[in-house]
């Protein structure tokens, strides 16, 4: 009998003798570990959670309804803000869906720019995880180191798109046009600014460096391992049942990556690995993300070597009217499968837009995975799922 079982038995014995009633602990909506406004109603027996009921919706903005009164160009602005740490990655599947409905395809260079930006946002999003996760376990310093490095990524993004978090850079059939400098210049798309390649390569070197630093500061830390290894194990079948995707699913041993299996953006011309780990615990989810930063660095490096020159905008009518049809378009968001089910009735606005947001599904497993865990593990497990409340509530 392991010591854990012994301990558990003794706990049970004690609680039977003393008849301690369970306590309801209300965690959130304002709580440091809930990343915003998530509320958890936990019934705890001492520190052990006997049942847990997540309450979401404090940030429900009704995007699916708002999208019904907005034109397709305006929705791009909106979907940026669903998962705000990876704004661009939310735009991509939407724009690809609309392009599929309209049967246009963005020129090659535009596709590559989209790919580069997607990967930059993936790095940025994973870096946010790398910074906040140790913080939840009590290590405050990785936050600063990692956010400092993320600033280099954000600067790249801002230099290219003009926005740090909400690039709003995709247009149907291409990318955002220039602004300012005469009406002729507005007809051209925003190309890469001078020096972009050089600063990207430098930033990518920094990313590899910070990954090594994180390895020393966090991964190699015995206390961190003690807090994460074998904690919050999600077996593969449960992960599939709850619709977990992205790093959370890959950490459960399923190498499901839409960049490989869904035919979108020129990912097929690049050489990269899908990281997956068999354990399904917090440590594996963390490691998958750390390794994915390295893979994304590889992708960006290859992409800026390959990126062809050429036009950035396909011909589309000025007033977008999308033909009738229904399309489900998905892409690999940093957090997993992000998809839009666009129902168009031929108008300027979609008839219905279903947003399959990643964190919503990733978080739905919460009450299952947190059952019979300890309160400190609640923080560790919840953090390891890497959710953004805007993405959960939409």
């Amino acid at each position: 009998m392991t010591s854990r079982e012994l301990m558990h038995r003794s706990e049970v014995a004690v609680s039977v003798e003393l008849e301690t009633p369970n306590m309801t602990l209300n965690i959130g909506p304002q709580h440091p570990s809930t990343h915003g406004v998530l509320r958890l109603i936990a019934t705890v027996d001492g520190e052990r959670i006997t049942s847990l009921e997540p309450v979401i919706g404090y940030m429900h903005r009704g995007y699916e309804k708002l999208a019904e009164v907005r034109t397709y160009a305006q929705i791009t602005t909106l979907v940026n803000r669903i998962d705000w740490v990876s704004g661009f990655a939310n735009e991509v599947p939407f724009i690809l869906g609309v392009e599929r409905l309209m049967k246009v395809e963005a020129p090659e260079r535009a596709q590559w720019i989209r790919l580069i930006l997607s990967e930059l946002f993936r790095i940025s999003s994973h870096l946010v995880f790398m910074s906040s996760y140790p913080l939840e376990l009590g290590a405050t310093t990785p936050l600063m180191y990692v956010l400092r490095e993320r600033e280099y990524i954000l600067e790249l993004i801002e230099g290219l798109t003009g926005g740090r978090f909400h690039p709003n850079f995709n247009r149907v059939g291409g990318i955002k046009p220039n602004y300012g400098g005469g009406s002729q210049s507005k007809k051209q798309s925003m190309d890469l600014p001078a020096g972009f390649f050089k600063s990207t390569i430098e930033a990518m070197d920094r990313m590899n460096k910070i990954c090594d630093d994180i390895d020393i500061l966090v991964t190699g830390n015995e206390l961190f391992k003690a807090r994460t290894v074998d904690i919050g194990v999600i077996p593969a079948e449960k992960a599939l049942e709850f619709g977990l995707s992205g790093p959370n699913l890959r950490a459960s041993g399923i190498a499901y990556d839409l960049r490989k299996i869904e035919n979108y953006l020129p990912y097929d011309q690049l050489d990269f690995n899908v990281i997956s780990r068999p354990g399904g615990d917090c440590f594996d989810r963390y490691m998958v993300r750390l390794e994915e930063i390295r893979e994304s660095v590889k992708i960006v490096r290859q992409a800026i070597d390959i990126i062809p020159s050429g036009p950035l905008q396909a011909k589309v009518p000025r007033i977008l009217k999308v033909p009738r049809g229904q399309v489900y378009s998905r892409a690999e968001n940093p957090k997993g499968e992000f998809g839009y089910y666009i129902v168009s009735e031929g108008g300027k606005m979609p008839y219905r837009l279903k947003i399959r947001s990643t964190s919503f599904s990733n978080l739905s497993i919460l009450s299952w995975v947190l059952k019979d865990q300890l309160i400190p593990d609640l923080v560790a497990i919840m953090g390891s799922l890497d959710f953004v409340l805007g993405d959960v509530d939409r």
Partner: protein
Amino acid sequence: MNFLLFLGVKVALLLAIVLTAALVTIYVELKAGSHMQTRIGPYYAGGKWGWAQPLADGAKFLQKEDLAPAKADRTVFGFAPYVVMMSSLAIFAVIPLHGSFVATRLDLGVFFILAISSLSVLGVLMAGWSSANKYSLIGGLRAAAQLIAYELPLVLAVVAVVIQAGTMSLVGIVEAQQATLFTINGIAISLPYILTGQVVGFIIFMVASIAELSRIPFDMPIAESELTMGYLTEYSGIRFSMFFLGEYASMVGLSAIAATLYLGGYGVPFLPQSMEAFAGPAVLLLKVSALVFFIIWIRWTWPRLREDQLQSMAWRWLIPISLLNIAVIGVFKVVL
């Protein structure tokens, strides 16, 4: 009359030293922590390097409204910070800055410290219970469990020192560390206990005192990301600053004890007795600063453990090791 006058002077001096030390520690924590995080930290307060930041914080705390939750037990709630503060201050009464420069020369100094330092948990428990907040309660209970688990290795580690020194007086322990061990070329060599068999004891003592201070990696009672500061959740203003000062004062206090027990205290090797009156306190300060800095350094590097992991570490590792340590020291004491 004379007694009262002396008492007044002693208390005033002690308070001045301890509070200054606590404020300086707070400043070092702010500043060193910031720089470890590639930040600047306090910058504007006081003109240069933000040296006045702890004072400014103190002034801010004083101005704040003294809030207590509606369902709190106000008497206990109000009293708890002072219990914590008192226990951290009382430690300093017996720490010798120099052989003849100690507030109270107790023959049972070690015993007194161990007794009084565990009082702080009473204040923490009072705070946790009276706040009428579940997080505070969990935090208070965690603190109590932690203290019980860590008081034992702490005591057992100190017992080994007491055995080696043969006295419970802190001055006596320092003097025992100054005793000549052997002579080389006519120079009498004396070594602090950490170099003469107490390494394990020192490590255990430090681990246990960090746990008792509830600082990272053992800050589960206040764990911000889990319990939103635990028993401190409901405190604000002057009462919070009492806890705050108390925490840093105990940090200095426990470091001073560690320095006294293991690092030779105020003793300086190779120094004539006449010089020691001046050099002693300075040397002690240096040793204390090093230990305090080490504790701060840990706090800004490591994550936190889990309560049950901490317990299993205490009961399964530290206590057996410290018992073994006592046995080994005892055997050596008898044999040598």
